[in-house]
């Protein structure tokens, strides 16, 4: 059933999205290059990649909240059947926080320090819903309860500095889901938290998906995080999707050398004291080499890779990768 929805009518369908950032001295950084992916209803899509691979820029493009220097230069972002890129700023603002919610990386700086937590939940409700004061208060209590905050009535009057990081991320999540959005974007929502709290926040997100049927776009650099709650993952490298598919298939059989290297570099070190790393660094996005962007770091590189960029091709109906040698990659 859910599979049909994914293929027939995805909630979010991004096609051929390109984002450029005006750098210094006329350098143009190509943060996203022809990205295509979709998120089905009630599915959790993980976006994985190193820093600077374009994960956050992709999320901010969907929200239409790119920094001043960045702009979308092409593509479409279809959400509930409408292209978000052609919407007026006003229409877009009414969508934000109502139909699409978002959680940021560091909860300790996500809330205005001068207003109480209750006030900041209330602000979202005031902004988007026609509710009376008492109704909004009841909804705020209900929201805090649903994100697992004990004694919510007392918490409403507290200020952000009076709460722990884990609690704050729950409050941020409560604000993000306040208006029952169809899509929740979570940009590294656990990176700034302690490991034990990380698991709790991931379980919270999984719970929201199960109970409310929210689709989640989860940005992370950590395969462990993705494995915990994602249905599908897309691996990004240098502004492109290099591999995409159901999480189990990718884990069992990675079809891109970068995915494999990334998988082996997350998690606990095996045997030795050093974390395995990927040699080299990502290419300069303002001056990309011809051919495959990963070629200079790839252990399986061939002359063809440096000359000709591999297109993303399907290996199974829902697993695709952009590598000339996908079939030869060891698990």
């Amino acid at each position, binding site marked *: 059933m859910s599979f049909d929805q994914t293929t027939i009518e995805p909630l979010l369908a991004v096609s051929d999205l390109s984002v450029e950032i005006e750098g210094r001295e006329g350098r143009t950084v190509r943060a996203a290059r022809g990205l295509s992916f979709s998120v089905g209803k009630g599915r959790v899509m993980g976006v994985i990649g190193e820093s600077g691979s374009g994960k956050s820029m992709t999320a901010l493009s969907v929200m239409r909240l790119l920094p001043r220097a960045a702009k979308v230069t092409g593509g479409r972002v279809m959400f509930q059947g409408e292209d978000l890129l052609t919407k007026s700023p006003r229409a877009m603002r009414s969508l934000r926080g109502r139909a699409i919610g978002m959680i*940021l990386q560091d909860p300790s700086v*996500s809330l205005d320090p001068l207003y109480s937590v209750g006030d900041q939940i209330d602000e*979202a409700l005031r902004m988007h819903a026609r509710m009376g004061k008492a109704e909004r208060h009841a909804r705020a209590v209900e929201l805090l309860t649903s994100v697992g905050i004990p004694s919510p009535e007392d918490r409403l009057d507290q200020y952000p*500095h009076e709460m722990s990081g884990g609690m704050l991320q729950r409050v*941020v999540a409560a604000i993000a889901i306040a208006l029952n959005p169809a899509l929740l974007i979570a940009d590294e929502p656990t990176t700034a938290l302690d490991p034990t709290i990380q698991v709790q926040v991931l379980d919270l997100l999984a719970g929201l998906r199960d109970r409310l049927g929210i689709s989640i776009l989860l940005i992370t650099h950590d395969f462990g995080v993705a494995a915990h709650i994602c249905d599908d993952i897309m691996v990004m490298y240098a502004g492109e999707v290099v591999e995409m598919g159901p999480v189990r298939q990718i884990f069992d059989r990675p079809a891109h050398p970068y995915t494999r290297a990334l998988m082996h570099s997350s998690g606990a070190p095996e045997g030795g004291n050093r974390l395995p790393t990927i040699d080299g660094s990502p290419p300069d996005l303002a001056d990309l080499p011809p051919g495959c962007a990963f070629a200079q770091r790839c252990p399986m590189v061939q002359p063809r890779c440096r000359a000709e960029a591999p297109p993303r091709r399907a290996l199974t109906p829902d697993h695709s990768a952009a590598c000339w040698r996908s079939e030869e990659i060891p698990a």
Partner: protein
Amino acid sequence: MLNYILKRLGLAAITIFGVLLLIFIAARASGDVTLLMLPQDATDEMIAAFRAQHGLDQPVIVQFWQFLMGMLGGDFGTSLRYQRPAIEVILQRLPATLELTLSAFGLALVLGVTLGMLSAYWRGSVFDRVIRVVAIMLQSMPGFWLAIMAILVFAVTLGWLPTSGRNGFLSLIMPAVTLATFPLSGILRMTRSSILETIESEYVKFLRIKGVPESTILWRHALRNALIPVIALCGLQLGNLMGGAVITETIFNWPGLGSLMIESFVSRDYPVIQVGVLFIATMLILLNLAVDLLFCVVDPRIRYA
């Protein structure tokens, strides 16, 4: 909270005592008032009589003790120059100083915050660049020089404003504006950079994610956060303002506390100097306490115990 206020007031009493002791000794160290007050051909007997009459024949420490005891009984001494109670002389000059400093401070605050905000809002624009250059220029100009230039241009050459004195609104303009320039440019620059920092913050990003309109973000969130360092700066500027008032009042012949202090120092009118300094020190200490308490109102993270 009450404990905190009481503690601060206790500290204030100690500070004021120290200030009084310092000014008491410094005033007497600046020279002998007797020779200034009496005619040049005064006899030794006349000098001795004058000193005895005003207690100046006693050791300084005894004089200080008598001064403190007198104050406790409500006697702040008699002005040597005016032959009236020193407190009366001070109180008579106080309204003029309050009028000048409050106008200057109000002007600096309102213009500084407004222009700083607009400058941040239109960052990089021509308006922003002009404002920033002018702010730096105004902050670098000495107040006395600016005052003299203003008199030359607006009073002497153009004849629009009176050169000096306190005679209605027109006469207030030049002293208030010149006194305001220094704190104004400071407040402006602080507001601008503080707002720029605020609107780049993660919580403003999250407000946009919530769908909050830009105007609400600016007025309700960015400005309130940005004003915290501006309030701190204002507390510091109050002291500068009093110092500036002394110079401005003297240049514009403004009959306030500042010019009275200069006159009293020149004529070595010890009692007036002492009471004047007591007044100014107390005012500054109370204003600074008020600023610190204002932080509590604006920022929930600050709680005094």
